[in-house]
């Protein structure tokens, strides 16, 4: 409990230990309260919950309970075995326990039931273990058996009140991703009931799978409101927070532009890259990524700024020689000591080690501009999740020091949106330029598109990129040509989708406000019904008492009769005898 954060005037929080989540929530989940994890099948709800429990035991000294309503604990342990959490060891230590609460298929549901008994049992177990965290995984599977939304809500309320009473930090997962998949009242109620709601989404837009996490609600605390991309790798969930949420990270803001090294490109970008921003250039092999990186670095050195060019899997001299063929001459700057070219081998280090190495290079060389060619080498070095966090930390480092960073990403197909690696990294970066080939009249041409540029008015037009011994030039292309039309259409589609998303968000928020007010009305109803229920209970108890008293009296009369007759027949036969007499 020592690690709980109590922000000023805020509520106590339980850290999840999941990279990014504690940053977004300002310290973790609300302590002793209910957190709802919503998401469709395979969205990572159970992984989130298990990881929070495992981290609680390992890093925060908080034992945990996992109540499984859908799968049995063996299945859960099996599924989690691929993560490096070693759950069996935590179970063996007595600090993590699984409770099987899934029902056998032979069970017949016949109306309303209550969780009283289960909660009593859990309270006992939590007390015995000293548990402070508990997960109710897929409780909706059990509750929907009642087929009675009102009764379901009652039991969810019971769980919520129980968590408060027991001072347990609770996570309830529910297989509800969107309002479409459930009745609006149910969805609204769940959100209303919980103190914190985290939505996990797995989208398949543009033929790529993209996972996103959003804190929809956090009672009594402010949270970073945005969709954060996340990945699930062998250590579990890693959320990329874009460095936007940490208050201690104050980046210097520059309005100054630095040249991209190509005059027409500077024009397209309304003056060049922002100083201190990060740029990604994607493209297939041979589309000119390295050339644009070289132009950027050469321009920096031309202004007299120290620069750093990091190249993966290519020898430093070769880069300089290749760039010389398009009239970019780096050798003199190297000789002056302005430019450092560092050639690295991907396999030689892990992504993490690469980051440490780059950090020390930045410290010793103090560059103002830096290029990494290609950054996707890090994905090869340690997987997507590792690369994502490494790039994120690198971006924080360079932003904090006002270094303008350019990364190239090698894409294998011509459409950049199909590349999961490229798009995940692109959410972190400020400017995204894509290079591709267009084949026209038997000629292979290079095309350049600015896909995004944060805070910059930029040209949406596709340009032809011409590399010659005179240098790099960009020329206009005609929209009549098929390839370019395609590119433009793609651009339009991106814009349309952004517009649609915004419209959907506004619609959702409006509908959500209505639902909230409906839920409040419902709550008032519930209170009224509760009182009615209490009256009924008292009536029933009274009737029961009267009934019992009557039975007892009847029994005494029979016994008296029997004694009068001196009978010694067993009590079971007594009824028959009584019936005969009647």
């Amino acid at each position, binding site marked *: 409990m020592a690690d709980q954060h109590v922000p000023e005037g805020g509520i106590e929080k339980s850290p999840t230990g999941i990279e990014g989540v504690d940053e977004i929530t300002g310290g973790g989940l609300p302590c002793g309260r209910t957190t709802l994890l919503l998401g469709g099948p395979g969205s990572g709800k159970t992984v989130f919950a298990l990881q929070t429990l495992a981290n609680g035991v390992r890093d925060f000294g908080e034992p945990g309970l996992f109540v499984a309503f859908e799968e049995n604990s063996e299945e859960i342990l099996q599924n989690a075995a691929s993560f490096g959490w070693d759950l069996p060891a935590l179970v063996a230590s007595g600090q993590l326990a699984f409770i099987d*609460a899934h*029902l*056998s298929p*032979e*069970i*017949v*549901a*016949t*109306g*309303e*039931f*209550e*969780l*009283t*008994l*289960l909660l*009593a*049992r859990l309270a*006992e177990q939590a007390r015995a273990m000293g548990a402070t965290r508990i997960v109710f995984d897929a409780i909706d599977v*059990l509750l929907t*058996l*009642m087929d009675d939304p009102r009764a379901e809500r009652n039991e969810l309320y019971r769980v919520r009140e129980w968590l408060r009473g027991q001072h347990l930090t609770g996570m309830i997962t529910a297989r509800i991703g969107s309002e479409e998949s459930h009745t609006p009242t149910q969805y609204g109620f769940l959100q209303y009931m919980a103190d914190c709601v985290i939505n996990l989404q797995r989208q398949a837009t543009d033929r790529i799978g993209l996972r996103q996490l959003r804190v929809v609600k956090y009672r009594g605390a402010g949270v970073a409101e945005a969709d954060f991309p996340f990945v699930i790798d062998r250590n579990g969930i890693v959320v990329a927070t874009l460095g936007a949420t940490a208050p201690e990270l104050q980046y210097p803001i520059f309005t100054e532009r630095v040249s991209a090294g190509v005059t027409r490109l500077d024009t397209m970008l309304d003056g060049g890259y922002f100083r201190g921003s990060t740029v990604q250039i994607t493209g297939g092999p041979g589309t000119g990524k390295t050339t644009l990186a070289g132009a950027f670095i050469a321009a920096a050195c031309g202004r007299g700024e120290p620069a750093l060019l990091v190249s993966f899997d290519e020898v430093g001299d070769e880069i300089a020689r290749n760039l010389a063929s398009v009239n970019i001459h780096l050798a003199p700057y190297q000789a002056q000591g302005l430019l450092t070219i560092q050639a690295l081998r991907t396999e030689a280090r892990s992504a993490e080690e690469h980051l440490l190495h780059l950090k020390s290079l930045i410290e010793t060389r103090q560059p103002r501009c830096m290029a990494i060619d290609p950054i996707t080498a890090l994905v090869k070095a340690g997987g997507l999740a590792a690369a994502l966090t490494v790039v994120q930390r690198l971006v924080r480092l360079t932003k904090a020091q006002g270094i303008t960073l350019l990364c190239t990403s090698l894409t294998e197909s011509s459409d950049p949106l199909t590349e999961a690696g490229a798009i995940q990294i692109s959410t972190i970066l400020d400017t995204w330029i894509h290079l591709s080939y267009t084949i026209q009249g038997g000629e292979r041409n290079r095309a350049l598109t600015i896909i995004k540029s944060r805070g910059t008015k930029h040209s949406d037009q596709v340009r032809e990129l011409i590399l010659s011994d005179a240098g790099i030039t960009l020329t206009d292309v005609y929209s009549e040509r098929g390839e370019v039309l395609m590119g433009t259409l793609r651009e339009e589609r991106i814009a349309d989708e952004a517009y649609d998303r915004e419209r959907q968000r506004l619609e959702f928020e409006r509908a959500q406000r209505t639902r909230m007010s409906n839920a409040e009305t419902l709550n008032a109803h519930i209170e009224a019904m509760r009182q009615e*229920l209490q009256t*009924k*209970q008292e009536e*029933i*108890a009274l009737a*029961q008492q009267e009934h019992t008293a*009557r039975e007892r*009296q*009847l029994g005494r*009369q029979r016994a008296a009769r029997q004694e009068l007759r001196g009978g010694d027949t067993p009590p*079971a036969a007594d*009824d028959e005898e*009584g*019936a005969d007499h*009647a």
Partner: protein
Amino acid sequence: MPDLPQPAARQAPCPFSTAAPLVLKLYIADNSLVSLLAIGNLTELLRPLPADCYRLEIIDGLDDPARAIRDGVLVTPTLLKISPAPPLSLLGNLADRQHVLRVLGITEEAA
């Protein structure tokens, strides 16, 4: 008590053999409304049956949690049919009379 209904008036034949009588356990928790409803509904269902035709035990799971766990009882009310085979468990307040009768193997004529 002359105004009490006479058991013989609604007596029905026992649909269970003496070799495999109806054995029931009803788990409840406390005297909650739902628990009392289940008790009431079940007593009502069984009333027409001769008393030696079934055995019913009502257990408050909160008094004996270990026993509830052994019996695999998760929520209350839970009605366990121990005999005749196959064993069954019914969750809920047993409000659906027809359904419960059918599941327990009691014919509507008997009830």
